[in-house]
């Protein structure tokens, strides 16, 4: 017999819920303190995309992103969660404006951090100009919020990964947590193959995709500071850990980040494959990294993986 649902604590439910499989609403529900989430511009306001009906495409009442505020271990946070199953979680005009508004509110208040649960293929092609503008506005709003002292944490573990403009926005965050299925990149596998040929990147080679863009590689390279197992509780703990780690932001930080990235390019620029990078980092049997279970990988990453803790 399985235990009745009411006997399961919120933490146990969050532990047994796959972040990858959950909807954006379920992720927020289990990530935040129970019952603390309050939505801005909820679905009942029907603030839908003004573009999709021109293309005879269905709308979603929240335009694929949920924004609001809640509490994390009793402290207030702003949150945004993309729904990766609606149009690949892509940024359209309304979708983008909701995130821009949230970041501007956070800047104005100054002391409340922002969690962004990315799950996106990038800009929505049907509203490409508005979507590209939204990416630029979000990046500006994010950097202005950080300049005002706001910590902005990205959590990446959804089925659409974090691609295109989403990858650019993630690069602007104070820190990132990622799980193995959470991929981070700008150009996706199919885009690279289409533009550069199958010899450059075979998008059907899943192992290649995951070891190049997947969470383990991003953690080892220092793009993400925390690796989470694929459940909502792990992401909650990762968010709390990162909120404790992130330091103040300013010009010195940006210079350190520039040095970190230049050093990374110098060290690994000639590597042809992620396995070459892991080997160069001193990992014995680097080819076995994709097979490692989460706990063993986290131990390895904490020993050998790079961080952006003093940069970003």
């Amino acid at each position, binding site marked *: 017999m399985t235990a009745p649902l009411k006997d399961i604590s919120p933490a146990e439910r969050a532990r047994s819920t796959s972040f990858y499989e959950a*909807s954006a*609403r379920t992720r927020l529900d289990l990530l935040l303190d129970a019952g603390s989430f309050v939505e801005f511009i*909820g*679905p*009942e306001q*029907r603030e839908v995309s003004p573009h999709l*009906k021109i293309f*005879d*495409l*269905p*709308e*979603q*009442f929240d335009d694929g992103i949920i924004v609001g505020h809640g509490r994390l271990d009793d402290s207030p946070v702003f949150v945004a969660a993309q*729904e990766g*199953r*609606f149009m690949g979680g892509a940024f359209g005009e309304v979708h983008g404006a909701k995130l821009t508004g949230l970041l501007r509110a956070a800047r104005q208040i100054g002391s409340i951090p922002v969690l962004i649960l990315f799950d996106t293929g990038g800009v929505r092609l049907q509203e490409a100009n508005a979507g590209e503008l939204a990416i630029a506005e979000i990046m500006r709003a994010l950097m202005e919020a950080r300049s005002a002292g706001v910590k902005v944490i990205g959590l990446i573990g959804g089925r659409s990964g974090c691609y295109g403009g989403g990858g650019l926005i993630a690069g602007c965050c104070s820190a990132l947590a990622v799980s193995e299925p959470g991929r981070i990149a700008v150009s996706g596998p199919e885009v690279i193959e289409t533009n550069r040929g199958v010899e450059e990147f075979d998008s059907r080679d899943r192992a290649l995709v995951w070891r190049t863009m997947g969470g383990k590689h991003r953690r080892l390279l220092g793009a993400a500071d925390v690796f989470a197992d694929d459940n909502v509780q792990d992401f909650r703990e990762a968010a709390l850990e990162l909120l404790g780690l992130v330091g103040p932001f300013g010009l010195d930080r940006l210079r350190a980040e520039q040095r970190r990235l230049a050093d990374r390019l110098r060290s690994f620029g000639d590597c042809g494959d992620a396995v070459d990078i892991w080997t160069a980092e001193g990992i014995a049997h680097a080819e076995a990294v994709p097979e490692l279970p989460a706990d063993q990988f986290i131990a390895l990453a904490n020993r050998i993986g790079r961080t952006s803790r003093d940069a970003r």
Partner: protein
Amino acid sequence: MEDLNFQHQVRARADGTRQRAIVGVVASGNLEVLVERSLPDAECVVDIKTAATGFGAVWSAVIGDFVERYSPGGLKFSINDGGARPDTVSLRLAQAVRLIAEAGQ
């Protein structure tokens, strides 16, 4: 896209105190159902925007069966459909009624 609207007189008011609830996602073979407690107790309205045109008769049967089985009095359902099958529609409607029947705002 096709817009459909169904209005039913129902036996009894739906349970619960929540004012609204939402279930599902707009994706291929899936749908979202937004339910709001905004009508007189004996009425039920279902507004549908669907990507699959020409299935009005199937929708009518699925909604009729749902209203008969759950008596969702006072509830307005707004559906964005990405071409879900009838069993998925029935499931989402049942989930929406169950969610709004919970206590709370």
